[in-house]
């Protein structure tokens, strides 16, 4: 009986789905940043833009 690599190393349930959800979250965070920028709240907008970039880095993990 052959032993598969997948049997030993835990595989993500669905990596493409994870990337899709992260991309969706990234877009939502960026749109929220745009909203706060238009409202003139630069502090919250700045923090949201960092969060969007952090999501981009998490996506690469």
């Amino acid at each position, binding site marked *: 009986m052959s032993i598969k690599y997948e049997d030993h190393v835990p595989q993500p349930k669905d990596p493409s789905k994870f990337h899709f959800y992260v991309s969706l979250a990234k*877009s939502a965070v960026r749109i929220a940043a745009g909203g706060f*920028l238009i409202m003139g709240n630069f502090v919250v907008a700045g923090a949201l833009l*960092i969060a*969007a*970039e952090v999501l981009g880095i*998490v996506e690469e*993990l």
Partner: protein
Amino acid sequence: MYATTSYRDASAINEAMGRVYSQMGIAVFISMLVSYYVGTSPELLQFFFTGMLKWVVIFAPLAAILVMSFASANFSKSGLQMFLYAFAGLMGLSFATIFAVYTMGSIFTAFMGAGVLFGTMSIYGYFTKKDLSSMGQMMIVGLIAIIIASVVNIFIGSTLMQMVISAIAIIVFLGLTAYDTQRIREMVSVGGDTGKQEVMGALTLYLDFINLFIHLLQLFGNRK
């Protein structure tokens, strides 16, 4: 009767700006310390960035900034200061993943580069006699354009476009650094107690610096 506004003299303004920069510096130091400590420990990275906790870690700074932004009137100056340092710690935790994705050398280079660029633009904003408010408005429009382009690029998936967006974002945040510095200098030049404005100013400059650093890292950083 006319309402009169008193202004500080140059040395008092310099002292107030010194407090802004030192608070910002402490916040950056806290972020980098937390980020390095968590990011270089595989156990801590595994703990914080798996399962649901990962989303809590990423979005916790946002909750903190919303509280700080909308409830700042209810805080004392020292309370606001503590909140700034706690926020910086949470922010450092949220971007600890940079140590798992990028090489240590490129993180150090991006940090030093961000420091030099930030310093240069902040000095310019501090000393220039030119009114930077129109440039600030232009940078804000640029930032909105970047946000739209980033959202569109999620559907296109172009690496080149992402690089162009990051490059423009660096230019925009450099402009915003000069604009914010001038704005904060004007804010603290008014007489009276400006302690809370100083903390909020430090937060604004901190966010400019971190945005600059992250975009520099994404553009020039070497991935592991």
